[in-house]
């Protein structure tokens, strides 16, 4: 039987950006779902929390993300209920093992020329240390302190690399991520100003409600006020 293979993404989400700070991991993603160049939906969450311990975010094809979440939630449930030891002690899914499981899934799909068209971000806190990793559609994995998928790789990573320190407080981490999301809103055609933050620490694993970034200061930079390059004001900035 001939199965259809994924050839291109249809309904997509854009960048997910994340960093490790002092005490946890903070992720940010906007809530826009694009259908080609059209903005299809403004309130779609692209990050989920698994078993109240691990965060999973994705950019790329949304249907593939939904399928992955469905499989991972089943896995998490099986981990807590069906394992032999679960009657005697608490076993939950760990971020690192989820990260490796997804690596195996992504690699196998790609080897069959039918990938999940996503860049996945996995975040958690275990063994008293934060964990942050990415997996791309080929099954490549990276564990890093700073991650950014999609356009974030070009626009947000330089900002993160410049400002990041291992001892960032949560407020500073949030400011840095919001700055990255603002730049992405200005310069990525498929991004919106409506974002969500997600945090995982030793005791918490929460995702915020979507909220609007304040971008009122983005249109009055001095370099933007005067027309240059002739062409009736269209010659650049």
């Amino acid at each position, binding site marked *: 039987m001939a199965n259809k293979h994924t050839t291109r993404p249809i309904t997509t989400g854009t960048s997910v950006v994340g960093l490790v700070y002092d005490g946890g991991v903070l992720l940010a993603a906007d809530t826009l779902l694009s259908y080609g160049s059209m903005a299809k939906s403004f309130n779609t969450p692209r990050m989920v929390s698994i078993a109240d311990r691990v965060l999973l975010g994705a950019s790329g094809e949304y249907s593939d993300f939904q399928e992955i979440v469905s499989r991972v939630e089943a896995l998490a449930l099986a981990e807590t209920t069906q394992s032999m030891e679960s009657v005697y002690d608490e076993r939950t899914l760990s971020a690192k093992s989820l990260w490796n499981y997804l690596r195996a899934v992504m690699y196998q799909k790609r080897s069959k020329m039918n990938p999940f068209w996503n860049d996945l971000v996995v975040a958690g806190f275990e063994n008293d240390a934060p964990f942050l990793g990415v997996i791309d559609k080929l099954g490549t994995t990276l564990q890093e302190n700073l991650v950014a998928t999609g356009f974030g790789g070009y626009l947000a990573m330089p900002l993160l690399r410049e400002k990041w320190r291992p001892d960032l407080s949560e407020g500073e981490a949030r400011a840095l991520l919001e700055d990255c999301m603002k730049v992405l809103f200005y310069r990525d*055609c498929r991004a919106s100003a409506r974002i969500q933050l997600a945090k995982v620490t030793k005791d918490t694993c929460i995702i915020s409600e979507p909220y609007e970034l304040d971008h009122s200061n983005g249109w009055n930079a001095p370099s933007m006020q005067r027309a240059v390059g002739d062409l009736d004001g269209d010659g650049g900035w």
Partner: protein
Amino acid sequence: METRILRHNNNNSTAIRCTPSSISLLLLVMSSILLPTTNAMTEIDMGTTLVALKFDNGVVVGADTRTSASGYVSNKLAQKIHKITSPAMEDEKDNDNGSDDDDDDSLSCVICRSGSAADTQWLCQELTTDLWERKYRYCQKTSVRQVAHFLRHLMRQQGESSLQASLICAGCDEQEAKIFTIAPSGTLLEEDVFAVSGSGSTILLGHLDSLKMSMTKGDDGLYSEEEAVELVTKLLRLSIERDGSSGGLIRLVVMQKGKKLREITVYPDAPSSTQLEMNIPGFANAEAI
């Protein structure tokens, strides 16, 4: 030579038979997955929204300000509305003689550009040069109709390699307000009441058609100037919301018979002051680094 690329063996393991043709086919297929998906056109492309709407005795045009290239916003403050200025106005910029205004200023016309930024910038420059020549050689006053026809002529001249440009030419001259659209092939159409162009325009067509339908039921005319400006602003906001290739500010130009051309810039709505505190339950407030 056998070309088997992927095959499940009986014991459920995959094996690749490595023949040269299978490798090249595999590489070809893999490269289509490995390369990032980009638009076919990587040149600077003005996915955009343009609106022109006639009102009482004039016309208002509106445009967004986003120029994009393969999903990257290369210019977030583009100027897509090219004003046709009479050469005499340029010469006497410092000499503010009120009496000269009536003579050469009867034409207010704009070209709204969508499509390839390079092609449309070139078209506008060619047009401006031609108008100057006509002014100084033949003392010829230009009408909106002439501007539109000249643009069409320029686009047809390219022949095989057509320019990637879709323009709206709108303005007021001696006669009345006019709106023309010029499609990439060079098709020229004069529009009755409104014209839209660009990737974001499809979102607005249904809305405008339904407004037009409700207008003919007993309304005695077009919108007033304030209504028209408000409507065009609203339309641009709607399409900026939905179209990924449109964004930034909203630029408007109002042209009326007997009045000077007026430009308006509308900024995106800033969030209310309460939102600025950005208190989110469970998360610390942002602190400067």
